[in-house]
């Protein structure tokens, strides 16, 4: 392994190279005091460098002769894991169908659309649906709602929570779940209690919060969904340095993906739209640019088709492109009420 790839400070690295140590193996067998003498640094510093070096070496796994790579997971194990985690329903059957059952945990899903199409509504619905108890086919988890625009309305969350409990009681009645353990004792206030609300006022706070989420979620292990509404807002105002914006956004996307994977939760990012000049005309497209469009695993676009709201799967590693109608009612996101309900395959 090259010395240049070690996570040590620049001056330590240059001292190693100046003393002639270009690869790990060249100094890994030395004692710390020998290294300290050669580099003219303290014994402690040399010991630290060797510790970091051996740690990186272990991760690299190149010394091992067993054939499998450290840290990798086989596809078979991954398939089993996926089946263990139920998907988060959106309360709209057609939408769930094209999503393969709902929003997937361990993945980052981006949902974008014009103002007023229902992005925040879907976000609130998901924050409530993640709390559906395991007995009713849900995850029984908590939600983190990161609000960058101030569009989260508590009254609406209460409305949707009440409707969700009603639906569950009906469902429970139908399936005759009358054993004591399954009795639905949920109150809308319990649901509201399980939504952790953060209000972010600048992009610095947004980045700080996403850095902090690692610690927060380790303390609140039952969080199963993180919703950011919207991820765009602070990055659209007043950003002169576009290169910086792209770097920050990709850093953020990577951290969110890591969160999703490490804690097995779903990350939903809500995005806005902008117009782009393509092929001689202006077209609508999701904001934040082309590099961002690569960052998320799944992409869903919400749009108007005639008088109905539709959702379109724009990008997904395992789902095919399809669109499905949905509606926003006083109870939240539900199936569209039109008669000719059919899923259009693209």
């Amino acid at each position, binding site marked *: 392994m090259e010395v240049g790839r070690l996570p040590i400070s620049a001056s330590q690295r240059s001292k190693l190279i100046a003393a002639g140590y270009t690869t790990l193996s060249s100094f890994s067998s030395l004692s710390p005091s020998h290294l300290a003498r050669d580099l003219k640094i303290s014994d402690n510093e040399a010991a630290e460098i060797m510790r970091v070096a051996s740690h990186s070496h272990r991760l690299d796994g190149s010394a091992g002769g067993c054939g499998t790579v450290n840290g990798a997971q086989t596809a078979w194990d991954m398939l089993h894991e996926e089946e263990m985690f139920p998907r988060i329903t959106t309360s709209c059957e057609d939408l769930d169908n094209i999503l393969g059952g709902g929003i997937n945990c361990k993945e980052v899903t981006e949902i974008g659309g014009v103002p007023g199409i229902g992005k925040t509504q879907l976000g609130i619905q998901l924050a409530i649906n993640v709390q559906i108890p395991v007995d009713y086919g849900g995850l029984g988890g908590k939600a983190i709602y990161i609000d960058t625009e*101030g569009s989260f309305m508590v009254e609406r969350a209460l409305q949707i929570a009440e409707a969700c409990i009603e639906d569950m009681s009906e469902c429970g009645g139908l399936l005759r779940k009358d054993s004591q353990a399954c009795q639905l004792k949920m109150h809308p206030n319990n649901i509201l209690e399980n939504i952790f609300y953060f209000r972010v006022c600048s992009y610095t706070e947004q980045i*700080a919060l996403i*850095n902090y989420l690692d610690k*927060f979620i380790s303390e609140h292990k039952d969080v199963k969904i993180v919703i950011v509404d919207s991820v765009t807002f602070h990055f659209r105002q007043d950003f002169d340095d576009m290169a910086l914006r792209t770097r920050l956004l990709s850093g953020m996307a990577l951290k969110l993906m890591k969160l999703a994977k490490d804690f097995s939760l779903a990350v939903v990012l809500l995005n806005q739209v902008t117009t782009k000049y393509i092929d001689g005309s202006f077209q609508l497209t999701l904001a934040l640019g082309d590099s961002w469009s690569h960052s998320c695993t799944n992409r869903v676009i919400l749009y108007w088709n005639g008088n109905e709201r539709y959702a379109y799967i724009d990008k997904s590693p395992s789902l095919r492109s399809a669109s499905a109608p949905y509606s926003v009612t006083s109870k939240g996101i539900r199936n569209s009420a039109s008669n000719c309900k059919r899923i259009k395959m693209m």
Partner: protein
Amino acid sequence: MANKQISQMGLPKSIANVFAARNVFTAKDALSLTEFELMELLDVGLAQVTSAVAHISEIVCPPYQTALSLMELRVQNEHLAGHLPTHMKGLDEALCGGIPFGVLTELVGPAGIGKTQFCLKLSLLASLPANYGGLDGHVIYIDVESKFSSRRLIEIGVKSFPEIFHRKEMAQEMAGRIHVLRPASLSEFTESLQQIKVSLLQNQVKLLVIDSMAALVTGEFEHGAPRQKTLGWHVSFIKSLAEFSRIPVVVTNQVRSQSRDETCHYFFQVQSWNETIEDRTRHDSHLVAALGINWAHAVTIRLVLEAKSGQRFIKVAKSPIAPPLAFPFNITSSGILLLSDDGIELTGPDINTIHCQGHNDIINFGGESLQ
């Protein structure tokens, strides 16, 4: 929060000094760099950088609340759980109490439709004492187009609340609570905003009205991108003002005609292109809200005022909680009067379109159309 000094964050002295030595003073500077960039810049190892960034993030990060505590706080502390009633029954019901606190509410419509009348009525309502359904507070009215008429304000007051306004001292006190600002340019407006932030906390201001937002930029640029960029900072600032002080902010917007180039379709909707050409020729008088799509995303509630076949309507075009309803209304001597409290529910994107048909017949203040 973003401008918090690193020196005040309680980092271990050695790393804090290194940050300062490399001109990284605020949290914003530190978090705008990736971890590897910081490693190179500060000349420290990855482990130290990671823990420093984690520490800074934890301090800068906003505190959390559960949705339940948010609701309880509002129900306890705020008037009608955070709403300013407009005294238009149908609209208040649709909006769950009235104009909500802490967010931007936009009024958009063609000229002369009644936006300023609505704003005058709201200013009055905010200044009324609590037992009359008001917020008992001061109002800051930013009047860009010089449309504020104090005579009309008093007329509305006298006709709607005769028991208060017939006493001269009361009328003087109510009118004395409304502070009118007249910025002549965007830069003056920016300055006033900064001052407003200070006085908001001191003077019991309960409502901010900006009439109109579009007029601030129309004079400065032709069209296109510059306008949206200029307003970016103002939009964030006004939104944060609204949130921290938990007051309603009402902004009016103008309309403009839809240009040929404009489309509202994604790449995967191209097959319906033929239909849209016909649509466009049919709706030549098609109007859209000014200030662009960025602005449309930034407002939380959008109320569209329009005229269709000679009747004025007020539509709830964008709202997190209200269904898309349209209410017919008239302008009377006591402000705006809804003709029906049960709105007409509109489906589809029609709720966003702005019509201006038969409008000129009804701007006739002296005539019989005023009931």
